């Protein structure tokens, strides 16, 4: 639905050049929620602004819903008619809501429709329908200043949906909200994604956002995408920075004759009570050192760090058992080089 290829953005200020985006290839599938995460200055903001060409990329292309926006942009600094029409089909929500304080909630939602030239009656009907959808029907006549942060963002979302977009861009939409409100806004985005088949591209610096609603994610660092994929793909990638950040587990071995394992759950295996099965089958005591498990899209997903008694050599069989269950096992404290890995697999197979 959204594809960028070789997207590059260089800011020039007084002879100095700052590369905000350095050849970003992004692919967001139709109907998914895609999260781009990174620290401030990583280029997330530039990326999302390049998608609807609020920022002109220095190089590269942006395609949204099969339409090459970079080709529509033309040469001039101002957005032509074609590009403006394309933008009206991409909704955008902002960190600071960006509602017009001089307009009521309803008039704010009507604004995109005014731009599209919709008739007054139709505008009014649509605005009320959207406010109802985001649960703010009774606030239609209020001014933004009379609303809480969460309500303002709901208005922002209703406004973004006014032009019946297929794509919603969310620029740190929950970063100015408290955790409780963040959850309800994310919930709303998730619902809209499911009900309307809306493709959502969001940028955030909060891991929780990615964890709670994203189907896919990408990690950005210094203008590049360092890792990307569906959440379970990322989780399955050994040594993934993003996986470690999404599902952080800690805990040290309690003695030298202990084996510490990182167990990664994704997919079917996660529904099985593997730890107690392991304990019963091999009659060993297992301690859980740390765990980060979430239910994403109805599947349990996450990581757990467990400790088994005995050295690694003594635990080859239980490790093999876990692997047979379809779990990904990383032995902590043993560098998982290719040779090592294959040795483990062989041992496990015995």
């Amino acid at each position, binding site marked *: 639905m959204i594809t960028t290829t070789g997207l590059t953005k260089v800011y020039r200020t007084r002879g100095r050049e700052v590369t905000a985006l350095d050849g970003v290839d992004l692919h967001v599938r139709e109907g998914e929620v895609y999260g781009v995460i990174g620290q401030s200055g990583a280029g997330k903001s530039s990326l999302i602004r390049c998608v*609807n060409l*609020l920022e002109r990329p220095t190089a590269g292309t942006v395609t949204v819903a099969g339409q090459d926006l970079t080709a529509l942009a033309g040469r001039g*600094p*101002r*957005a032509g008619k074609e590009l*403006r*029409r*394309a*933008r*009206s089909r*991409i909704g*955008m929500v*902002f960190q*600071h809501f*960006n509602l*017009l*304080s*001089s*307009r009521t909630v309803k008039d704010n939602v009507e*604004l*995109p429709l*005014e*731009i*599209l030239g919709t008739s007054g009656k139709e505008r009014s009907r649509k605005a009320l329908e959207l406010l109802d959808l985001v649960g703010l029907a009774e606030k239609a006549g209020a*001014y*933004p*200043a*009379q609303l809480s942060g969460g309500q303002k963002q709901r208005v922002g979302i209703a*406004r973004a949906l006014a*032009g019946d977009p297929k794509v919603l*861009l969310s620029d740190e939409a929950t970063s100015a909200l408290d955790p409780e409100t963040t959850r309800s806004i994310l919930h709303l985005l998730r619902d809209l994604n499911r009900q309307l088949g809306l493709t959502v591209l969001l940028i955030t610096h909060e891991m929780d956002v990615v964890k709670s609603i994203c189907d896919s994610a990408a990690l950005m660092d210094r203008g590049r995408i360092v890792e990307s994929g569906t959440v379970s793909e990322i989780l399955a990638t050994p040594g993934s920075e993003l996986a470690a950040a999404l599902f952080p587990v800690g805990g040290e071995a309690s003695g030298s004759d202990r084996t510490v394992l990182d167990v990664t759950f994704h997919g079917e295996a996660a529904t099985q009570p593997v730890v107690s099965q392991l304990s019963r089958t091999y009659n060993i005591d297992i301690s859980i050192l740390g765990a980060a498990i979430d239910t994403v899209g109805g599947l349990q997903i996450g990581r757990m760090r467990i400790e088994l008694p005995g050295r690694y050599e003594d635990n080859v069989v239980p490790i093999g058992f876990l692997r047979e269950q379809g779990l990904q096992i990383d032995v902590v404290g043993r560098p998982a080089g290719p040779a090592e890995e294959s040795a483990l697999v062989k041992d496990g197979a015995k």
Partner: protein
Amino acid sequence: MTWSDWSEMQPLLSQACWDTLYMVGWSTLIAVVGGLPLGVLLVLTDRGGLLQNVIANRVIGQIVNIARSMPFIILMVALMGFTRWITGTTIGREAAIVPLAIGAIPFFARLVETAVREVDDGLVEAVQSMGGNTWTIVRKVLVPESLPSLISSTTTTIVALIGYSAMAGTVGAGGLGDIAIRYGYQRFETQLMWITVGVLAVVISVIQFAGDYAARALHRRGGRSGPAPRLRLLKTSTPTGKAG
């Protein structure tokens, strides 16, 4: 002739009052119509603006600066040819409106510029993301969002124009300031001078109060508390104190 008799003063004062309001009213209207687009243009053409055009910005900025640096009385004289071309005369109330308006346009334009610059860039970005063009942004964002400030700016302009209008007396336009200068200052009719100054103070207070009230009513709708009215009354009245 003594001026202690109110029945003699009264028609003189009411005529002067009417003259002042007539001149200031028309010149304010023209200043707003001319200054608003100019001020918006100053913001739009600035570096990083929607219609970035450094040369146009410099040219407009310089014209505004030159017009503002000219003392009003000089401007009035300098514009005499233009005034005659427009109104057919260089004396009287109508003739005074031309230099008053032209003096106030750049003044108001600068105030508009400041007010419009205060509008959050995020709002502009939001409307761009909806597919709005520059004209839509000006009409639906920049002007409505800065309306409380624009009303305050208009109030300030009216008060400044009342000050300028005192000098319009030199072209026979009449007005309150003219009475204060001619009767009070030049003929030592101290009593009349003070009454005139008093009337001016009342007129200015009423205008300032009305302006502040309107600006604050709009602000309150936006939920932000308006600026302290007392402080602004003091600040904006200063130029008239000098002129009257």
